[in-house]
């Protein structure tokens, strides 16, 4: 049986997710439920149908093909009953507005490898593949197997993780991974739990162990207004990172509203309205963090 994972996106020519130009494979399923999550379609592991209502042309093509009767036309308007949808993807094919997109199609290791290899000529400047999600370490065998093959192809392999998995998952992929992108959100357990649904204990422990393994780690911190952008939180994050070896850089990711993505998959967006932090604000936080962590900021 080949190892199969649900993939919701292959992002080519990615330039901010690891060194050089990369292909990022986003797998579905994540142990966290961060309120600000900008890839909400990556949270559930089962397939979900995204419906972009503003693109619907009211053509009704979807109605006929759905085995579940999830689509209907009422008074000339298209209505989608999400509860009935089983995510088979049949309606995406016929949609005339490109308003429907199935998130999460099963791919085998070999299929994933082929996707990555298609762009191998663009990886020259240190680029390669990044497995992201969701949380790729929910599928450690897939990750290890894919990386083993891609490394034989000479491709640089990076893994973007939230860290909220058992250490044995890291152990499974460590020998095959060239770099980790490690997401850290908050140093305070309670606050972390409140905003992501889980405590940060395991995340912090895994990070400390990972840092001892000698594989380069880039820390990625989403800067979320009202959650971790205050001086106390920033300083605490800095202290958490202070003195950790193997950290090649710390990158701050400014918060971006992803409301249309939530709407598309019919998932409530609990993030209070907030603006993207300005470049000046980002620079100020970066300076604070550089000072307290002693690490290089990107």
């Amino acid at each position, binding site marked *: 049986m080949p190892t199969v994972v649900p993939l919701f996106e292959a992002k080519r*020519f990615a330039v901010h997710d690891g060194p050089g130009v990369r292909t990022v494979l986003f797998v579905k399923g994540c142990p966290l439920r961060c309120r600000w999550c*900008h890839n909400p379609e990556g949270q559930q592991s089962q397939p979900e149908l995204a419906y972009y209502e503003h693109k619907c042309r009211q*053509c009704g093509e979807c109605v006929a093909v759905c085995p579940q009767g999830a689509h209907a036309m009422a008074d000339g308007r298209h209505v989608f009953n999400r509860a009935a949808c089983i995510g088979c993807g049949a309606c995406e094919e016929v949609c005339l507005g490109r308003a429907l997109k199935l998130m999460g199609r099963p791919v085998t290791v070999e299929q994933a490898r082929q996707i990555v290899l298609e762009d191998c*000529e663009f990886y020259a400047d240190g680029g390669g593949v990044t497995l992201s999600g969701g949380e790729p370490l929910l599928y450690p065998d897939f990750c290890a197997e894919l990386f083993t093959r891609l490394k034989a192809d000479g491709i640089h392999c990076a893994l973007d993780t939230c860290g909220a998995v058992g250490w044995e998952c890291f152990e499974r992929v460590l020998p095959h991974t060239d770099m980790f992108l490690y997401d850290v959100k908050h140093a305070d357990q309670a606050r972390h739990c409140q905003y992501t649904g889980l405590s940060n204990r395991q995340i912090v422990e895994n990070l400390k162990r990972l840092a001892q393994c000698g594989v380069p780690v880039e820390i990625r911190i989403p800067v979320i207004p009202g959650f971790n952008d205050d001086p106390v939180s920033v300083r605490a994050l800095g202290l958490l990172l202070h003195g950790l070896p193997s950290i090649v850089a710390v990158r701050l990711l400014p918060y971006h509203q992803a409301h249309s993505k939530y709407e598309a998959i019919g998932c409530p967006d609990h993030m209070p309205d907030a603006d993207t932090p300005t470049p000046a604000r980002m620079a100020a936080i970066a300076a604070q963090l550089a000072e307290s962590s002693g690490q290089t900021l990107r």
Partner: protein
Amino acid sequence: MIATGTLEQDKAYLWSKFKDPVFDPDTGLDSETIKANVLKLAEELKHLPHPVVKARAFEYVARHVRIDVNPHDWFVAFGCYDRWNRPLDGLVAKWDREVDDTRLTTLQLMQNLKQSGACGMGKDFDHSVPDWDALFALGFPGIRQRARSYRRRRQDSGQLTPEAEAYFDGIEITYTAILDMLGRFRDHALKHADGDERVLACAACLDSLIQGPPTNTYEVLQLIYLYFMISEYVDRLQVRSLGNLDRTVYPYYRKDLQEGRYTEAQIREFFAYFMMQFASIANPWGHPFYFGGTRRDGQSEINELSYLILDEFDKLDICSPKLQLKISPNTPTEFIDKAVDIIRRGRNSMVFLCEPSIKRAMMGYGATEEEARTCDITGCYEFVPRARGNTTIVAYLNMLKPLELALYDGVDPFAGIDLGCRTGGLDAIRTFDDLHAAYLKQLGHIIESAIRCANDFEQHLNFINPTNAYSATIENSLATARDAFHDGSIYNISSILTAGFATAVDAMMAVREFVFEKQELSLQQLKDVLRDNWKGHEKLRLRMLQGRSKYGNGIDAVDFYAETLSRFLGNKINMRPNGRGGFYLASMHTPPRYYLTHGQKTGATPDGRLAGEEISRNISPTMGMDINGVTALIRSATRMDSALHPADFPLDVMLHPATVEGDEGLVAMRTLLNAYMQRHGIAIQFNVFDADTLIDAQSNPDKYRGLQVRVCGWNVHFTDLSRKEQDMFIRRAQNISG
């Protein structure tokens, strides 16, 4: 030397220099009088050969056109500044008509090709590049002197035929008139300087150019500008490259700094005013010069001056001159990054040309390695052996028309014109292969017809417009006493361009998918639906529009078909003898006009396009059809062999500004360039979307389906975003492009 005014103070003058300049009427005649007198003069001289008549007309203009040497400028001003009303227009038009009326046998055929929208055609006097090195080394008097010695040689060997005599007379009269005109400028400057140091400096510069070759940076730039104006506005032959400026001007720049003649700041100022001339002319096609190249020893030509010029261009915030960068693995990364950084701030008037791929293409038609290495970049993104080749564009193929002709058995459904090739209509088309064969036969027939027409009219280029000023700069022309823009160059190249290449691929693939594979409708039904412009079949249209087989997405079967079509074009066109002793080359370039006008003359097409809509350009995908991103696009485009299109092979790449932010953005753009170069791509132009384009995308989402917004960790198609979120990105783009 003290400058009279600052650039900021002089900008008002410079911007109006080619729009509504003011000339002292005492300096000459108004342009209507000149035009009328030119025609009178030509009538009096009509017994003389054309090079002489034209030279006399040139001389008349040089003596009588109004002039100015203005304290607000380092460069002189010509009273014939209007590109659409040049003093010799009437004369050339008269000779052109004469050829049409009495000499051409293919006029009706050409008319048919043009009217049906199958192929645009025309006599081209818009693509000359003089031998700048010769002009610099010899100056105007030296060019005349060199022509005299070629004439003497010919005379001594008894080969001065009447035709050769006319050729040399034309040059002699033209260059003497040029020197006299420079004298007019100088004397005017001296008379009106009123102590203004800049005007006096200009007078001294002109005096030096009358005496001999240019001796410093200012004189060299003045010479380029003078030659440009003289050829384009007086001699009526467009100059399509100001040359390899960083290479050609560099020795003067070094010398000026070493000898303390000018400071770096002064040289920057000269370049700023120089570039402002072309910004002010503001023709939509832009006036290009290029950077870089490779020296004989394999080192890059990029030097300090390259950086200086780019810097000044950046500061001016103008979109003409159009800059071209010849790149190869030896080009300093720092320089590429500097250029890329300017582009990503929304300045899209820059294009990269890959030297190794140019070399493959040029050597494939017989150019030597040296000729390929030192080729000039000209026009939009063409390339030609420096000082040894001319290129004309004679035909612009509409790649969709052969499909219409295949469906209508050779009779164009747009204008009802019979183009004369029978492929049997629908009865003869039972499989996709049949359609493909009929398409190629119709396409081949159009190409043959276009070549017949071009062979016919190109025999008369030197009759219609003898190019005295240009020919004198080209050594092979002097040696053969033949017009350099006709058959007097070593390479006399006519190129055949295409429009709608990607749209044609999409259309053919859509027929294959929907008619022959899925059998959703018959070919007859499709033909009817297209004739009715999809009326009543909007769902079908959308399905065919969104079919999976669109060029530019890295899809094997589609790319293979594109490759097949491109090969057919190359095989059919390249190296065919033209009407003036040279040969044809195939080009994938599409000038802006033609993707619109050909589109207007083309009915609805099976790719889901509505009648009259624009078609694709260059080797770029149909707008909005590349939804797999830029890497897939580059893979698709470079699956074709660029060497089969040695007249040009340009790709446009659209990028969202957020994709190319920061250091990573620079790396990303460089990576794209390198990959394109490694895959033998030739020309590539990045368009970083500006706010206006994003606003357009908001209201026309179908055209921008491929537009992706990407920032760290996420990625979304712009058209998937809600209006509010789109607005946010528009605001951001507004901030980036300032």
